[in-house]
């Protein structure tokens, strides 16, 4: 039902653009330059169509049904799990838990893996560039159970200070929780090295792969990572779905998170037993149609030469970086050597919101604000930044629109 993977050696962004109807729709009469895929990506026709056709032909609730539609829907749901497994390079399909998004996936680890064992004074190591989704669940453990958060700084160029990370891991560390790619700086962290160092001290590692999985090729086995989380809507897939990869040994030992249908073995009045993973962690009716959409999205993405897509996105990043370098009133935040296609910046004399409003009227969609990374804002002494993020469907014209929008904004806002 999903598209047969089309393997192309070079990436044709203009062809890909045609898969995204929304990109052709003008905004305020201007062509849309959608530079906000870091917040959420647009969805190709094949994803929307696959979900619709599935709902029109094979839909029912999964798992417990004996009838035809239920079997068909269950097959699609479990096939989607295998698609995610393959996408992440997991050894087994039952190491993939479907969640409502990456935020829930990280909370699942906090509630089911750490909460039952954490003691006052136990430590969780995280970096200052984490998204709130990879901060707040650990704050809960601090507030409620006395865990200690150990913060690892980034260097001025936005790269991770790996020596500081190493030093932060102590005998009391229970988990390293780190982003694979910063949603503000674009920094890609050296996950394999981080895992190696943490494991050397017997500490498991969770990676927030929300951005990383979009721009990098992930192989959880090669990384030897313990937990890895993704979200559908940034991977050109639907909202309402994400996934947690976790090593089977962890899943087997973890207690359930949400309770409800599907995740039990037996329920009686005064006792209860739970199903094995992955069912144990998928209480209630799962996002069935969304799982099918996510599989279609991953198939779509995997149908391209991912290295070529990455090169294309990197070209846009470089082109934009060069463009703003000429503007001495723009300060880029995040210039790490290993960096994905995200450009955050401050423009002198302009608040990010005013700038974004002006860009918007030029058809240029960027994010302005703290990007759910307030700790990082404090680190760089700002309250907000503007952020342009690049996806496979962006082109140099989008960057040109951004650059000329920046000039207009300066004209309006900083003219005296």
């Amino acid at each position, binding site marked *: 039902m999903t598209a047969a993977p089309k393997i192309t050696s070079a990436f044709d962004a203009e062809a890909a653009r045609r898969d995204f109807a929304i990109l052709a729709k003008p905004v305020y009469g201007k062509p849309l330059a959608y530079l906000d895929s870091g917040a959420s990506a647009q969805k190709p026709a094949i994803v929307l169509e696959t979900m619709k056709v599935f709902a029109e032909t094979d839909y029912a609730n999964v798992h417990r049904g004996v009838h035809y539609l239920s079997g068909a829907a269950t097959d699609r749901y479990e096939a989607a799990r295998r698609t995610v497994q393959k996408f992440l390079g997991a050894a087994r399909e039952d190491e993939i838990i479907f969640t409502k998004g990456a935020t829930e996936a990280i909370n699942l680890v906090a509630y089911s893996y750490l909460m039952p064992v954490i003691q006052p004074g136990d430590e969780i190591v995280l970096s200052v560039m984490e998204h709130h989704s990879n901060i707040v669940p650990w704050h809960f453990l601090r507030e409620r159970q006395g865990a200690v958060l150990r913060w690892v700084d980034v260097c001025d160029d936005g790269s991770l200070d790996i020596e500081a990370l190493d030093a932060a891991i102590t005998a009391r560390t229970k988990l390293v929780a780190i982003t694979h790619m910063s949603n503000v700086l674009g920094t890609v962290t050296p996950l394999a090295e981080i895992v190696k160092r943490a494991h050397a001290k017997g500490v498991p590692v969770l990676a927030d792969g929300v951005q990383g999985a979009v721009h990098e090729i992930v192989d959880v086995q090669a990384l030897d990572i313990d937990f890895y989380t993704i979200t559908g809507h940034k991977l050109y897939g639907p909202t309402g779905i994400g996934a947690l990869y976790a090593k089977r040994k962890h899943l087997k030992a973890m207690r359930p998170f949400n309770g409800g249908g599907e995740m039990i073995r037996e329920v009686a009045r005064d006792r209860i037993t739970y199903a094995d993973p992955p069912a144990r962690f998928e209480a209630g009716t799962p996002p069935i149609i969304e799982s099918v959409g996510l599989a279609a999205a991953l198939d779509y993405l995997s149908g391209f030469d991912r290295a070529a897509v990455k090169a294309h996105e990197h070209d846009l990043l470089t082109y934009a970086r060069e463009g703003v370098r000429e503007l001495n009133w723009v300060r880029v935040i995040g210039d790490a050597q290993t960096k994905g296609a995200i450009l955050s910046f401050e423009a002198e004399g302009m608040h990010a919101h005013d700038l974004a409003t002006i860009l918007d009227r030029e058809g240029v969609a960027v994010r302005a604000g703290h990007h759910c990374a307030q700790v990082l804002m404090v680190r760089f002494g700002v*309250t907000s930044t503007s952020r342009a993020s690049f996806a496979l469907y962006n082109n140099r014209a989008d960057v040109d629109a951004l650059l000329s929008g920046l000039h207009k904004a300066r004209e309006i806002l900083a003219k*005296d």
Partner: protein
Amino acid sequence: MDNSLRELYQEVILDHSRHPRHYGALESATHKAEGYNPLCGDRVTVYLKLDAGNRVADIRFEGKGCAISQASASLMTDLLLGKTAAEADQLMTGFLHVVKGEPPSDLPEDARNHMEVMAGLSAFPMRVKCATLAWYTYKNAVEEGSQ
């Protein structure tokens, strides 16, 4: 260039945001509140000195944020200085109408003229919150911020 942008970021607004009136802390404040918009990180603190008759004898603000939020706070201090609580409420209601582009409520003509510079906001519904932050903070200061 988009006319609505020119109207939004007109000289008066930019001037208010760059050279805010009544900026700074007020030592003798009887009331104070902090406003914060978690969506954008904008922040404003409003200091009030209310006299025996609940009249705004003095008003100051401090803040950090976009041109709209700063200009709106500055404009507000101009408008509220010397007003009674009832007059202030009337001004606030009127201001909300203006920025949302709703039919204007009963307002003294000079106040209306004063606020008119903010009318451009009605074309930018996503930015209305920036403009109302200071006003809601003022309201909060009166109701819960007695020092």
